[in-house]
């Protein structure tokens, strides 16, 4: 596939970029004690780590990648080639996504073995949750990049999504402990349905509603990318 040529080049760049390596490889490990301090182990720990990987390795990394390639005029150069627009974005996302998937699998296996988590009874919900989550956060990263002038500014422009999802999506505590009204609103955040689907892989839980919320986010994200994504530097 043509887009993988861009993906391979991006992977080389990823290994040569210390900040990106730190954010996606070290940060999730640092979060483990934090999650354990709120008594997460077993399935909640796996779910929390997966959510965190989605935010750091997929979302945050891709915001900086898209901004960097745009400001370097790489996106503009790619756009006069044969690749279509979606192929360019897909290619540029590949390494972050592959690294993130690897991490999720690794964390799930390590935590699963140490704390003796049973195999998921409904693994397809895990797959849907992970694939949908990666898609949503790659799209959101593309949208955020449109409002980010420089790579440094990404630390600020990514905060709304990061903070909202870190605190409001049930990463550290189940949303059910919150008052009903608040929990209902927070279930609409983009990370919440992903975590719901992951939990549903192991135990019975709501599935239809998370699926709908996730689909709506993907549709919104796709629309927003088409509408706002910038291929040229902001000047």
């Amino acid at each position, binding site marked *: 596939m*043509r*887009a*993988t*040529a*861009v993906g*391979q*080049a991006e992977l*080389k*760049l990823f290994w*040569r*970029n210390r900040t990106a390596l730190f954010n996606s490889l070290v940060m999730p490990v640092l979060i483990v004690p934090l999650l354990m301090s709120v008594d997460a182990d077993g399935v909640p720990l796996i779910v929390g780590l997966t959510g965190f990987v989605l935010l750091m390795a997929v979302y945050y990394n891709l915001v900086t990648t898209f901004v960097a*390639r745009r400001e*370097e*005029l*790489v996106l*503009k*150069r*790619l*756009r*006069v*080639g*044969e*690749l*279509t627009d979606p192929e360019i974005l897909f290619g540029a996302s590949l390494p972050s996504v592959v690294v993130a998937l690897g991490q999720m699998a690794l964390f799930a296996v390590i935590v699963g073995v140490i704390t003796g988590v049973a195999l998921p009874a409904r693994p397809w919900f895990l797959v849907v949750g992970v694939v949908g989550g990666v898609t949503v956060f790659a799209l959101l990263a593309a949208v955020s990049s449109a409002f980010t002038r420089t790579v440094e500014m990404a630390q600020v422009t990514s905060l709304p999504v990061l903070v909202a999802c870190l605190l409001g999506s049930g990463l550290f505590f189940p949303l059910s402990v919150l008052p009903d009204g608040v929990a209902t609103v927070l279930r609409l955040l983009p990370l919440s349905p992903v975590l719901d689907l992951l939990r549903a892989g192991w135990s019975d839980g709501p599935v239809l509603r998370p699926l709908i919320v996730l689909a709506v986010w993907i549709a919104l994200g796709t629309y927003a990318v088409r509408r706002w994504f910038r291929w040229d530097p902001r000047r």
Partner: protein
Amino acid sequence: MFALLGTNGAGKTSTVEVVEGLSRPAEGTVSVLGHDPFRERSLVRPRVGVMLQEGGFPPDLTVTEATKMWAGTLTSPRPVDEALSLVDLTHRASVRVKQLSGGERRRLDLALALLGRPEVLFLDEPTTGLDPESRRNTWELIRGLLREGVTVLLTTHYLEEAQALADRLAIMHRGRIVAQGTVSEVVDAYPARISFVPPAGIPLPVVVSEDGSGRVTVRTNNLQETLHELLAWAHAHSVELSGLDARSASLEEAFLAIAEEAA
């Protein structure tokens, strides 16, 4: 080859970006190889090569890696080594893009534009920032492509470049084409010039204009005749026309005259 010239901010790059299919025309239609380059991008792109005025490569890739990446996106690419040797970058193959000089980056950009064996090539100021030798080499490369039958659309600031390479050209000023045709058609519309320091105290036989520097300039559509007249007159009066300079109109003069007229 068709060359698009123009004053700064005349709209050359915007025009070329519409033709390349990067942006949609506000009105009118564009056709490249029989297709709309914006809506039928997938039909046009495999047959064209583009060198943007400002194109970028990831600074942390090497020259070879950047070229390989580009080759991976193309339908029928040349071998990477061949493309790099065309632009004389083989000796820089393992250097990171960020360590290249501006001229070397331009040549890498040209290599990528040539990588897909294009039938139509868009070159937006391809030799800006190149040293004289590289510029000559690039000209030779472009001449070779033209001989192979490649169609080239060139924009450039260097008028001698257009004069040396282009079959036809157009001059843009403030978004409009103000002159077009073959090089000689454009140039012939402008008079030749003779300039010299006039001898003191004798009325001259021709109409001259003064620019305050002590020299005078004669404009003529018949250089040989006017020059002969002037020299015969000087001979008859035994005066010297010091600093005598006679030249046919060049593209540069035509260009300057157009920019001046339009201003």
